[in-house]
């Protein structure tokens, strides 16, 4: 009887220990590397500091924080365009060199016309996630970004896209940027790097970082052109114009 209780007690302890171990392992797997950014828009009625609204047609769209059935917490971001526009909320995010990041968000949309709906992308980049166009449930948007060098990109949550203005509302929540070790098959991937991406809302053009130079191949072509011009000028100047030779 005593040995039976002891065995039962040992069994309970074993199950508890295994549970603790497995939950710890699961927690570790779920967390992975620390995210560079996590934003669920829980504080304040306006987009958090750093986020800026960029519009194709100025003053046509709005970005606000809405209280309601969010994907995470009780608030989410809403971009509204009563008329067709390409409206984006952008945030600078600094990324390390030689790293792959997963940019993700949960989104839903309603009242859209034809064309792109709620999308996630990088400012001035044409590569963008597939659109979310319905509001029956929160749907994931995922973009994988591979960096060649350290860079500041502009995370962009958009309603519409380049050449695809749209009207309606797009909701975003649980925006995450985190480094990952692999890109799943079929994922949307974009590559960046080489210099620091410009902030679209910089006050002055002069504040922008210097542009990278051209490929050295250009100078080879320039050298050939200089030689061609020099030879041509010498030869042509030695020749009298046709009409001056005529009597």
């Amino acid at each position, binding site marked *: 009887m005593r040995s039976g209780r002891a065995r039962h007690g040992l069994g309970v302890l074993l199950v508890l220990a295994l549970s603790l171990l497995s939950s710890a392992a699961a927690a570790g797997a779920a967390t992975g590397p620390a995210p560079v950014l996590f934003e669920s828009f829980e504080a304040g009625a306006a987009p958090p500091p750093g986020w800026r609204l960029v519009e194709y047609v100025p003053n046509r769209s709005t970005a606000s924080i809405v209280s309601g059935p969010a994907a995470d917490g009780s608030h989410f971001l809403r971009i509204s365009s009563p008329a067709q526009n390409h409206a984006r909320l952008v945030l600078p995010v600094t990324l390390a060199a030689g790293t792959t990041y997963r940019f993700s968000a949960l989104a839903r949309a309603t009242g859209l016309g034809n064309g*792109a*709906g709620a999308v996630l992308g990088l400012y001035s980049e044409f590569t963008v996630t597939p659109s979310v166009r319905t509001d029956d449930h929160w749907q994931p948007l995922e973009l994988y970004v591979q960096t060649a060098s350290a*860079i500041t990109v502009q995370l962009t949550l958009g309603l519409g896209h*380049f050449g695809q203005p749209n009207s309606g509302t797009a909701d975003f929540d649980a925006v995450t940027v985190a480094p990952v070790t692999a890109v799943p098959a079929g994922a949307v991937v974009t*590559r960046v790097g080489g*210099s620091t*991406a410009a902030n679209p809302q910089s006050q*002055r053009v002069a504040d*922008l970082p210097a542009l990278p130079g051209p490929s050295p191949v250009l100078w080879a072509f320039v050298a050939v052109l200089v030689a061609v*011009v020099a030879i041509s000028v010498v030869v042509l100047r030695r020749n009298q114009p046709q009409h001056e030779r005529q009597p």
Partner: protein
Amino acid sequence: MTERTAARHIDVVDGLRGLAILLVMAFHYWQLSFWALRMPGVDLEFVQFAGYLGVELFFFISAFCLFSPHAKAMFGRGAVPTLRHYLDRRAIKILPSYLLVLLLLGVFLPGLYPIGTGAGGVPMDVALHLTFLHNLQLSSRGSFDGVLWSLAVEVQFYCVFPMLARAFRRRPWWTAAAMVAVAVGFRAWARRGPLDGFANVDSQLPAFLDLFALGMLTAYLLTWIAERPAAAQRLRAVFTVGAVAAFGALLTLFHWTNDIRYGGPVELWQSVNRQYVGAVLLCLTLGSAFAVPLWRRLVANRVLVFLSTISYNLYLWHQVIGRLIRDRGWWPASTPVPTDDPTWRWSYTMVSVAASVLVATAITYGVERPLLRRGVRGATASVLGWFETYRPGSGTGHLADRGGPRVQAALGRRQVSVRENHAVGDDAAPAG
């Protein structure tokens, strides 16, 4: 310079104009379709992205064509066109197709490109477009049709061209240098301003004066070289090397601007490098004009020359047609957002290009060419004649024979021949 030599040079410029419209279309359809031209081992997406530089090539060619008769006059070949003739030709070339775009898009498709979003609403927007000043403010720059901003720049250049041409005829190098200096200085000034709206400030007429100057200089130099046919013949191989090197330099510039899009606003790259793009275009045009026949045939191939012929209307309509086909779902995709469907991307591009070419061909040969060939009065008489001829009971003879008195009277007036229209400088490039 023989007529045949002159025609050869026109062919090369026509080919480059065809290249310009191809570049612009490649850029816009890339934006609309998300179709990137990638094949195993070859990635041509950089050409699609750099296609926006096609507008710069249009400006360059336009100045070249406008100044060519002046350049010939400088060397005692022909007379300087009169101001009236110049204005007549520009108006007939630009206005009918432009007004057709405004009318059709304003009446039937006012929502395609938002109209009247700025101060003054629709009346102000219309007034700005009718006076070709719509590029001055951001709200009207892209209204009616997203590509019309460059037409404003082009027509504004037409207004100052007679004065510039006069100065250029007297002191070509100094005038070109002054124009380049103004453009470079203006863009440097624009770069000291705020980023918001920079792209619009940096694409006003003064910011393009260097491209126009280099186009005019190219016309002058081409005539100067053509006056030395024996030397030009001896230098054919050298010119060919120059043309190939210029083409290589242009592709390298395309790569460069494509790389910039990952690191900063492309407008800044344009602002800093426009004069160099112009210099490369000068080398490409001169080199190609005097290159070996094989290179000239490559540049002035039939496809490019045909695209050049319809380039103005193709420029005006290709984006509109592309947007209509995509946004109205006329070419359906298998995904809710068509650009998510890889098959749709390329098939849509092909369909849109074909539709644009058809529409542009119809307008060019149905409206633009008759007007250029016959003038406004002659074309009106033709239309009237058609109605008079084909009313019940009328005859079916030749147009000139079968028209009524009004037609006969109109046809009796001076008409401009097709050959005249094709003279270099008169058939100026379409606005980019």
